[in-house]
């Protein structure tokens, strides 16, 4: 480990570290534009120059490997002068349009010009102008502002895996962007906006909306997929203006998907802002009391067996807890949180992503069954890609199901269960890869489990995990990838049919036949609602989507940005989301609605504040006691051997940009669908 001196402070850094990292270790701030921890080193902006003893001229600290005995100065006159020079060169062509630039206030160039810039320019020549590039509905470009740091080029090549961006032409004519007009066809393209140190790449939907200092920042958790990306919600007044990633090395690093970032404009449209009751076939506005009275009139005295509840994909654990308890009091065990009818819910290790997302970086072979990870969880796909790059291509990935593009080299084995059986019997070439791997993993998607033979598939996958040593004391490579943010939480809470209770399909069939008379939809929209026409439907949620259309009583709930809530991601990581704004109109936090309803039904639930609900959650399942840390789940017995059908596995996500009521209501997501989803033109989008 090299030891070096930075401004008289001795530091020891890991072998392979750069001088810049050593300087940071010593607590010295080094200005930079091109250097980024998660991207390869370019060394082209020259802003990080430092003085090194016995070197004839200043060195770029980001590209200089730290070596034993180096003496570095970061605050000498030479360094200051060198950086001033670099800054002056950068500003020769940079426009002085900060007042109309969206990056203003959070611009690296602006900030660093405060420290290294000069108050006026020595250049009188014309500044260069560069034509803007059309990069699609998300990234807005003002390329005249570009300083050629190439962060966006490296991000799209290395992290996103799409070769769209490049630095073309040369010298003063250099332009960053695609040579031929092309949109950035990546689910992670919004991150380019965060990476750009100047205002060249800014957010198109957020253009000219607000200045960073006007915003209130709330740390929260995303619910658009089951990754549980850590986000920061920026609000002004009662409006959610943007979502940015929050650093969490174990989950999303510092990236988020475009849906996470941009679906929020769906929260401004089709909102349920007051209760509604169906009168003579039409939903009419009502007060909370009237809505509750309507439910009471129907439910009172009804046999619990005729009542059922379904929880949706984005609901928080608190409201599921309250609804589960209320259903218990009503004498019903017909509950289900698996809208898609997936056959999961055994021991915890059978339904979570056991190896954890960060654990992907230890795997050396991965078999994906029935999941299109790129569409279902782009952040996890970027981890897989990261692992592939880390191992210089030795990480082997194989797909069973659809042949989607993980953005790197992979083997496509087959479409359906036959191939899975081949793997189990060792007849497939990839079986040898799994055998040789020291940390093999399998990712089982909902496309493999939401079928009738889901349990048999689960059993086969488990047998594969056992056979190829995927589960050892240290390593658990058996992973289930969920598509719904609420699913693992629901399973942890036991929001599944109790003794003699009905599952989702049975509830829907029962409702169609008239056996189930009352169906309570807690944010559940991804159902065949035509089967609910006979039943009395209570819909509680934030958006007027499929569920509210068939409802007899609509209870306006809060969106994920409007409530404190607990979510469990696909790894089984319990995370808290925090309220950024208040619910719209008469809407209320969801668990409070259920609590109020219970009081009006005369079955008052025993909690009056969120802490009490959370205590109750820990009582149901103590995993809710360990927040932010995924708990290792004991390997258990699960799955039921059986005959698997021959049809291929199909991912439930047909269009990444629209998977839930919020993203379906979003204008930006609609534009992305139009631009990027091929089937959209043919009208095939689900």
């Amino acid at each position, binding site marked *: 480990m090299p030891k070096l001196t930075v401004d008289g402070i001795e530091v020891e850094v890991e072998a392979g570290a750069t001088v810049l990292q050593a300087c940071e270790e010593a607590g010295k701030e080094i200005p930079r534009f091109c250097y980024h921890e998660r991207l390869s080193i370019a060394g082209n902006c020259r802003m990080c120059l430092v003085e090194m003893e016995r070197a004839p001229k200043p060195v770029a600290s980001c590209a200089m490997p730290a070596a034993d005995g180096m003496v570095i100065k970061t605050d000498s006159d030479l360094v200051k002068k060198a950086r001033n020079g670099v800054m002056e060169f950068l500003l020769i062509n940079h426009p002085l349009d900060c007042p109309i630039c969206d990056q203003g206030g959070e611009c690296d160039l602006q900030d660093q010009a405060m420290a290294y810039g000069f108050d006026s320019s020595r250049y009188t020549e014309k500044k260069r102008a560069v034509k803007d590039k059309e990069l699609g509905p998300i990234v807005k470009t003002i390329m005249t502002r570009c300083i050629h740091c190439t962060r966006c080029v490296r991000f799209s090549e290395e992290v996103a895996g799409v*070769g769209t961006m*490049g630095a*073309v*032409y*040369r010298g003063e*004519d250099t332009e960053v962007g695609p*040579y*031929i007009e092309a949109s950035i066809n990546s689910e992670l393209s919004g991150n380019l906006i965060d990476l750009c140190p100047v205002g060249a790449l800014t957010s198109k939907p957020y253009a000219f909306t607000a200045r960073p200092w006007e915003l209130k920042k709330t740390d929260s958790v995303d619910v658009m997929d089951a990754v549980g990306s850590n986000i920061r919600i920026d609000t002004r007044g009662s409006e959610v203006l943007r979502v940015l990633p929050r650093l969490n090395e174990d989950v999303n690093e510092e990236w988020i998907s475009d849906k996470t970032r941009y679906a929020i404009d769906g929260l401004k449209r089709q909102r349920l802002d007051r209760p509604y009751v169906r009168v003579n076939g039409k939903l009419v506005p009502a007060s909370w009391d009237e809505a509750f009275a309507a439910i009471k009139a129907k439910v009172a005295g009804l046999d619990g067996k005729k009542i059922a509840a379904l929880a949706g994909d984005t609901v928080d654990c608190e409201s599921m807890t309250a609804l589960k308890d209320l259903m218990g009091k009503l004498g019903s065990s017909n509950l289900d949180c698996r809208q898609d009818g997936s056959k999961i819910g055994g021991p915890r290790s059978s339904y979570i992503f056991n190896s954890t997302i960060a654990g992907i970086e230890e795997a050396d072979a991965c078999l994906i069954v029935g999941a299109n990870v790129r569409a279902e969880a782009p952040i996890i796909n970027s981890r897989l890609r990261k692992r592939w790059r880390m191992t210089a291509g030795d990480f082997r990935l194989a797909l069973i199901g659809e042949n989607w593009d993980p953005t790197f080299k992979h083997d496509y084995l087959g479409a359906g269960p036959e191939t899975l059986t081949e793997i189990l019997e060792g007849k497939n070439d990839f079986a040898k890869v799994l055998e040789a791997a020291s940390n093999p993993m399998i990712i089982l998607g909902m496309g493999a489990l939401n079928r009738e033979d889901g349990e048999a598939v689960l059993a086969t996958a488990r047998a594969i995990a056992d056979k190829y040593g995927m589960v050892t004391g240290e390593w658990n490579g058996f992973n289930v990838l969920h598509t719904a943010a609420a699913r693992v939480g629901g399973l942890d809470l036991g929001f599944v049919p109790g003794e003699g209770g009905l599952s989702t399909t049975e509830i829907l069939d029962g409702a169609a036949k008239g056996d189930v008379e009352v169906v309570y939809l807690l944010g559940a929209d991804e159902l065949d609602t035509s089967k609910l026409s006979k039943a009395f439907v209570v819909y509680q949620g934030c958006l007027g989507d499929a569920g509210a259309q068939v409802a007899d009583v609509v209870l306006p709930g809060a969106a994920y940005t409007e409530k404190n809530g607990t979510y469990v991601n696909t790894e089984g990581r319990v995370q808290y989301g925090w309220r950024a704004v208040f619910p719209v109109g008469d809407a209320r936090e969801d668990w409070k609605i259920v609590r109020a309803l219970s009081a009006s039904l005369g079955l008052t639930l025993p909690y009056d504040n969120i802490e009490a609900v959370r205590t109750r959650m820990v009582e149901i399942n103590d995993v809710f006691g360990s927040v932010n840390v995924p708990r290792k789940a004991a390997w258990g017995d699960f799955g039921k051997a059986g005959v698997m059908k021959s049809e291929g596995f199909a991912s439930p996500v047909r269009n990444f940009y629209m998977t839930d009521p919020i993203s379906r209501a979003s204008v930006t997501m609609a534009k992305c669908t139009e631009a990027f989803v091929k089937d959209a033109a043919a009208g095939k989008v689900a």
Partner: protein
Amino acid sequence: MSHLRRPAPRELQPTSFAFTPENMDRAKKIIAKYPQGRQQSATMPLLDLAQRQTEGNWVPTVAMDYIADMLDMPAIRVYEVATFYTMYNLAPVGQNFIQVCTTTPCWLRGSSDIVKMCKDELGIGIGETTADGKFTLIEVECLGACVNAPMMQINDDYYEDLTGESTRNILDTLKRGDKPKAGPQSGRRGCEPIDGPKVLKAFCGCGAADQPAEPKDGEA
């Protein structure tokens, strides 16, 4: 920036590209020169091959895509190379692609006259192509032949020690469809001093008496 350094408009871009069988053999030989896993290094020679094959002496975008495909790399990486190096033409040029050096040494030796002669003789300006498609004229930076300044390059050949007169002769010969003699136009053989060689005279056949024509035994 010259229009040759910008992609040709869509209507000029061909819709497909493939190496001829002979060029394919060449391409395979070129690729085989590089170690396994480093085939992308063949980008530059392949671009050159594509430019030579294409009518109009340029690299269409489809050819770049074709090469990217061949070397299994993103197309943008090939675009970056092709747009960086000025020897790749991004738009079609005339049959005789005239590059006149106007960097300081050539300029001091009268390159302005050469440029003017070209313009007058061909009736075109810098960066333009004659109506018959025979000539394209551009100015370039140093081509590394300063000792024979002023000079110009036409396709693969250097024409050096130019004067207005010799430039006109060269252009006239080209107009007739003949190929002028490449190299210095002043009577010099190479880059020896203008008043004749000072050393190694025997080797250049200048018949100097102070050196033996044949090296004696033991010398070399």
